[in-house]
């Protein structure tokens, strides 16, 4: 699909540039004429939305870093000073803190869309794997960022997460001390987390470049999960998808703005407006919502090391999906059995998130949540390692349309005899 370039330099300057640094050609081929399946739905706009989120986080983050002080004694007050004394500091900080939640909301929709339509299957395995890498980098960045305001949850969240490394036999304690730069979470930890929090978004931006580059070789998958067969199946990216992405991005920004302006602390924890105090442990240490499913897995396993392995395994599993799915058909639209297991997986993830948000000994309708989390964790693993390989072999897919154009435009447009 990347095909031969259709770029024609229009002026002497463009001709001069094209033989030296063909930047206009690159832009022309990748965001102007790039042939894109004509049947992409709303769920395919989240790539643009995520790019926007990354941009917002980087721009607001750079401004915040101009005012923030990475020092255990001053960090909390410096954030409060941003909220009170810096012109529009409240806006920049609320955009950044809510932006993290919106970023994860978008990335989860993007990932579930990829799972549903089989976007990880050949020839797009690397796009998926690079995407998993971005997701892991995002979690690391968000975790470092949550520590920076140096509130109670910042401090205790950092303590809980970094202590996970101490579960590793023999070298664990040493690794934890090395990560802290001290014998507990403290000033040295805060400083290195700030440094890494500033660094990682640029690495993410670089990996996003690879993600898009890898996407532009085979081109987009689509809700039908079938390959593009003729030029009739596609439309040029601009203006068709630039305008569609812009419209849905604006709807997303409206949701974003509702949180920033009318419920800026909705995703936050009140405890984080209390300065970190190593002597006072909050009754419930809860990570940010987007990490809750993994937190629930960790807590549902009685043995700490096993818990860490199960949690890490859940992330590593994602890398193998392209080879765990044995089906010839990409899209769940034509996979009646897989579709049901997919929604079961979505329910398991939400259930895990809910379990993670409640206290360890909580129960609902007499069922201890720790058992709900165990069942959901089992389903999470079973979905990838058992259901995906087996269903792909035993399932009879529905009849697949002959082409994208036929499906969208009807038989008149491109009608191979049925």
């Amino acid at each position, binding site marked *: 699909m990347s095909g031969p370039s259709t770029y024609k330099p229009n002026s002497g300057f463009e001709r001069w540039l094209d033989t030296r640094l063909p930047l206009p050609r690159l832009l022309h081929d990748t965001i102007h004429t790039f042939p894109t399946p004509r049947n992409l739905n709303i769920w395919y706009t989240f790539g643009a939305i995520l790019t926007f989120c990354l941009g917002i986080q980087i721009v607001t983050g750079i401004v915040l870093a101009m005012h923030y002080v990475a020092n255990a004694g001053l960090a909390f007050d410096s954030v409060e000073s941003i909220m009170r004394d810096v012109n529009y500091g409240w806006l920049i900080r*609320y955009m950044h803190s809510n932006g993290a939640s919106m970023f994860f909301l978008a990335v989860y929709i993007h990932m579930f869309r990829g799972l549903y339509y089989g976007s990880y299957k050949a020839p797009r395995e690397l796009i998926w794997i690079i995407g998993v890498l971005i997701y892991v980098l995002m979690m690391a960045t968000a975790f470092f960022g949550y520590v920076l305001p140096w509130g109670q949850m910042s401090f205790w969240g950092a303590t809980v997460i970094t202590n996970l490394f101490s579960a590793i036999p023999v070298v664990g304690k040493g690794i934890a001390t090395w990560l802290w730069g001290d014998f507990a979470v403290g000033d040295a930890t805060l400083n290195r987390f700030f440094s890494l929090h500033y660094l990682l978004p640029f690495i993410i931006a670089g990996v996003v470049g690879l993600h898009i580059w890898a996407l532009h070789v085979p081109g987009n998958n689509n809700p039908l999960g079938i390959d593009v067969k003729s030029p009739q199946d596609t439309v040029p990216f601009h203006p*068709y998808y630039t305008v569609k992405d812009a419209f849905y991005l*604006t*709807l997303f920004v*409206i949701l974003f703005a509702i949180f920033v*302006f*009318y419920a800026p602390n909705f995703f936050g924890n*009140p405890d984080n*407006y209390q300065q970190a105090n190593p002597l006072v442990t909050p009754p419930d240490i809860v990570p940010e919502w987007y990490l809750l499913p993994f937190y629930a897995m960790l807590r549902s396993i009685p043995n700490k090391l096993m818990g860490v392995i199960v949690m890490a395994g859940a992330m590593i599993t994602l890398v193998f999906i392209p080879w765990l799915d044995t089906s010839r058909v990409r899209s769940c639209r034509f996979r009646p059995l897989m579709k049901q297991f997919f929604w079961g997986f979505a329910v398991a993830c939400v259930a895990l998130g809910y379990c993670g948000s409640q206290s360890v000994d909580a129960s609902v309708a007499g069922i201890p949540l720790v058992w709900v989390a165990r069942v959901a964790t089992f389903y999470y693993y079973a979905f990838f390692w058992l259901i995906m390989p087996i269903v792909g072999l035993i399932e009879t897919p529905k009849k697949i349309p002959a082409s994208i154009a036929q499906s969208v435009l009807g038989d008149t447009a491109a009608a191979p005899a049925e």
Partner: protein
Amino acid sequence: MRLTTISLATVSLGTLLAFGLLASTPAMALDTTRLAPKDVSFSFEGPFGTYDRGALQRGYQVYKEVCSACHSAQHLAFHNLDEPGGPEFTEAQARALAAAVKVPAGPNDRGETVDDKGTPISRSATLADHLPSPFPNEEAARANNGGALPPDLSMVVKARESGPQYVYSILTGFTAHPPAGFKVIDGKYFNPYFEGWNIGMPPPLKDGTVTYSDGTKATVEQEAHDVVTFLAWASEPKMEERKRFGFGVMVFLILLAGVLYASYRKVWKDAH
């Protein structure tokens, strides 16, 4: 030796008796989880809610005359008192309010922190000063409050679940009589809206604790409502600016979405 044995026996008998007595009283385990906060509403709720100026000004009076004896509000400066979206005292009023408060001024140009009589050097506050803390350090605060630390109030409303309702309930929740079987710890006070029901803070507000100059009747509920409004503003001083700005952003985004939707339909008209 014999004596010791007897006295030991007496002691153990006494202990046994004491335990027996305790056991015979209906000592069911009381659930001292805090009660849900009272359902009280405030002018600053909702997407268009603003702070009630009168309540903010009265609330500052309550903070100044009552709370500030034990609680700091260190993120507030006197110049905040005349800023838009806040109590909006006039600049002259804010200067006068600042001048009425002493702040530490040591060391002086001779390096002294106390005057000839040994009292710490102080001066009247200016608009640039932050509200002073009642105690020089955490240890002093604890020593003066039976070991409990009065929390800083500049963010207390944001730092608690349903903050405004919670703080209001604490201030008005000193019910006279604890339920049978609940023992109020010596030096603590009964307040069922506080986790564990034993709170270190004595009931701070009574009817008429302050005298409002605007003629508002100073009931406990009124005083609590006013000071909670003030503390909510202290937590979120840019709230009015935020909501006003947000409204403009919303109008813009909805118009933009409309224009983009029209373009989207037009561009795609021939592609379906």
